């Protein structure tokens, strides 16, 4: 395995571990870090002229994610 491939894999693993660490920190009592769900919820409440742009963006992104990894 090449060094660059190993570094790339390590980078993605690090990103996943960082998500888990921040979420864990957010769920601790009296934490000042919002959970990922809270961040998503606030973004999803973002409207422009009555159009739920944030909601559409987050749901569309998740839709695309499924299509990208599971169908395409």
């Amino acid at each position, binding site marked *: 395995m*090449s060094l*660059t*491939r190993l570094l*790339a*894999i390590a*980078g*993605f693993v*690090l*990103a*996943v571990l*960082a*998500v888990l660490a*921040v979420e864990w*920190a*957010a769920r601790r*009592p*009296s*934490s*000042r*870090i*919002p959970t*990922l*769900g*809270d*961040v*998503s*919820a*606030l973004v*999803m*409440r973002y409207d422009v002229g009555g159009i*739920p742009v944030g*909601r*559409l963006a*987050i*749901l*569309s992104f*998740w*839709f695309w*994610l*499924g*299509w*990208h*990894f*599971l*169908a*395409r």
Partner: protein
Amino acid sequence: MEQRPELTVEPVSPWARAQVMLPVFVPFALLGGLLPSFSLAANLYVLALGGGLLLAGMSSRLPRRAAPVTLLPGVAWWLVPVAVFVVVEVITFGMGSTHDYPTLSLLADPLLDGYLVRSMAYFGWLAGFWGLVRR
């Protein structure tokens, strides 16, 4: 002690609870695991499930969980995993997404060829989608 702003509890229909909906996704995930990538069936299946959940999410009929009014000041911590992922993905994508510079998609494809991992990925995708629909 500081109170989180999202502690308001909304009444939830029994069928909208995760304990009810998550088992419903299991047969869908097991069926989806049978459909190989790049097949017409997989495309139609994902489009049907995703389209249905997208419409459900955009509808105002489903009950939604209370959202926080403002975010806590530590929200910037979420930039750490995002930054790590973006840096690695941009570099590997820029280098052509090859064996030596694999993007996440390239790494995930062989894993998703297996039925069990593929079914679990379907379940995770559906469960995550439902979680977002309820937000």
